[in-house]
């Protein structure tokens, strides 16, 4: 036990002496979250839109004031005619236009149904989908509100060219993605490099000649990385709460548990990489190329997995971050409990045990 503590102490010294790596470890998640947080709030809030109201009645006034009171939009009232609209779009003065047809109020009163036209500048498709989605939500809210006060169902249907895929965009998707990516990268890279370093230095031979057990070497290497990753996890959660107003809705305990499971899985991958890598560069490249791309592409936070060709969909099942991503979304965003994520948790546990056992067996006791 004393031997183990000595070794773990040494590992922590390595980590804290290496300022550059330390900076990268904690800088990476902070940079990602903060950068994205600012990019997100600047772009999506206060988008300039034009509202053309041909109906000019009480309902349209209410709806317009509701849109105006949200801080998503900055309404340019000077733009009125169709030609003006086109010019404004071309100059980039407005991102979106909402048009209330002349018979809007009439339709609404007589049939309980009316349409508004929403035109969005799709040269930036992400932005277009996002702001049209805001309108959909605002109008939906408005529908339920007026239905309550009017005592009968009213239906205002926004007609749009863009169908929004709520699983595809926005901060709520980004944060779980960053969590999966950062934890995966940090864990695999740090672990593989830490072990290969000992091989390169020649100290691994000394350790193997000593009575120190190989399993202890593994435990000592993994402990600091596990702790750093857990700290990283809480930094990400805190930042997303402060900057993105995204709080953990479900149980933090469950989220932490599943995160540790994911961290251990990633550490095992790092272990496996280190066993096969001969130099630190090789280990670094292996974890960057081997882990970063599959994590980014097959996790589902950049590209929806459902849209992928079948072979890639099948392949994505093998990527641990895919399951972790689902867990984080369910627990953090939807506030669901263990009953909703037991399957994913079980899959991660299986992957973790499998990878750890393999790397343990392949870790050479005798050189």
């Amino acid at each position, binding site marked *: 036990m004393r031997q183990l503590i000595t070794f773990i102490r040494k590992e922590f010294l390595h980590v804290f002496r290496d300022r550059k790596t330390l900076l990268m470890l904690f800088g990476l998640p902070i940079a990602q979250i903060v950068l994205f947080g600012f990019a997100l709030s600047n772009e999506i809030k206060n988008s300039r839109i034009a509202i053309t109201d041909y109906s000019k009645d009480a309902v349209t006034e209410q709806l317009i004031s509701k849109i105006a009171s949200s801080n998503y939009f900055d309404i340019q009232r000077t733009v009125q005619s169709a030609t003006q609209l086109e010019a404004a779009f071309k100059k980039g003065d407005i991102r979106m236009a909402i048009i209330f047809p002349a018979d809007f109020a009439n339709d609404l009163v007589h049939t309980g149904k009316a349409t508004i036209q929403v035109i969005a500048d799709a040269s930036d498709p992400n932005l277009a989908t996002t702001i049209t989605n805001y309108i959909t939500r605002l109008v939906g809210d408005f529908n339920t509100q007026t239905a309550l006060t009017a005592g009968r169902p009213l239906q205002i249907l926004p007609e749009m060219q863009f169908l929004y895929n709520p699983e595809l965009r926005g901060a709520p998707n980004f944060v779980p993605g960053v969590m999966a990516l950062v934890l995966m990268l940090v864990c695999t890279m740090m672990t593989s490099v830490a072990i290969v370093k000992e091989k390169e230095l020649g100290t691994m*031979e000394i350790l193997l000649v000593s009575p120190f057990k190989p399993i202890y070497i593994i435990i000592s290497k993994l402990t600091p990385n596990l702790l750093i990753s857990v700290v990283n996890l809480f930094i990400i959660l805190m930042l997303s709460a402060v900057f993105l107003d995204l709080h953990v809705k479900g149980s933090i305990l469950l989220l932490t548990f599943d995160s540790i499971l994911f961290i251990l899985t990633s550490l095992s991958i790092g272990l496996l990489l280190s066993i096969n890598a001969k130099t630190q560069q090789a280990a670094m490249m292996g974890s960057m190329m081997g882990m970063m791309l599959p994590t980014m592409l097959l996790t589902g936070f950049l590209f929806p997995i459902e849209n992928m060709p079948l072979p890639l969909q099948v392949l994505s099942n093998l990527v641990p971050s895919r399951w972790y991503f689902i867990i984080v979304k369910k627990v953090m965003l939807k506030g669901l409990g263990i009953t909703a994520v037991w399957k994913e948790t079980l899959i991660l546990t299986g992957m973790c045990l499998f990878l750890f056992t393999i790397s343990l067996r392949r870790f050479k006791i005798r050189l």
Partner: protein
Amino acid sequence: MPSSATPPVITTDKLTKRFGHFVAASELTFQVAKGEIFGFLGANGAGKTTAMRMLCGLLKPSSGKATIAGFDVYTQTEKIKRRIGYMSQKFSLYDNLTVSENIRFYGGIYGMNTAAIRTKTAELLEELQLEKEAKTLVSDLPLGWKQKLAFSVSIVHNPDIVFLDEPTGGVDPVTRRQFWDLIYHAADRGVTIFVTTHYMDEAEYCNRVSIMVDGVIAALDSPTRLKQQFGLDNMEDVFYELARNAKRKAD
């Protein structure tokens, strides 16, 4: 000189290691006495490293017998590991740890307690005259000092035997001389030294020398008697005489 009264610390009897059809070390038979400085010479690829690894418990022999500090290399490797020290040709200290942190670490993995480590550290720093550098990062030390420190660290846990694998590679002659003073000092205290080297002046420093050629021990005796036997003036010529007939290519 080692006394013949105490039982040998290293005993091998027809110790052999095969990798497939390739016989890396063939029927090695020798004994090393307590406190002896035993030189293990051979050209690259002659089988030195293989032999050393078998003795350290890193490699399982294919056949033959060997005991280290009275323990069997097949069944008691864990006990052997506690009784030996090892220093490899690669510099084996951690660069971003200080001198005393390195000593503490290596003492610690051999299970020494804090008090023992503290006494040992003070003792060791005094012997090396490194007291002022205790808190210096090893990366800031000159190479010669690092090498001497690495040797002292390899015997920090008072082993019976220390295996030195080309310990003086890339070190200047003056430092090498100082390094050998340390080795003599350790041998005087009863530590058995098992050393491989390519420097023939160092071979002269050993009590006995074995020269391996193509996986077998071609000669084994004190440097003086080896020179007599071959009728040559120095170990360099003795080594060349034996090694030039080697059939194996260096690796």
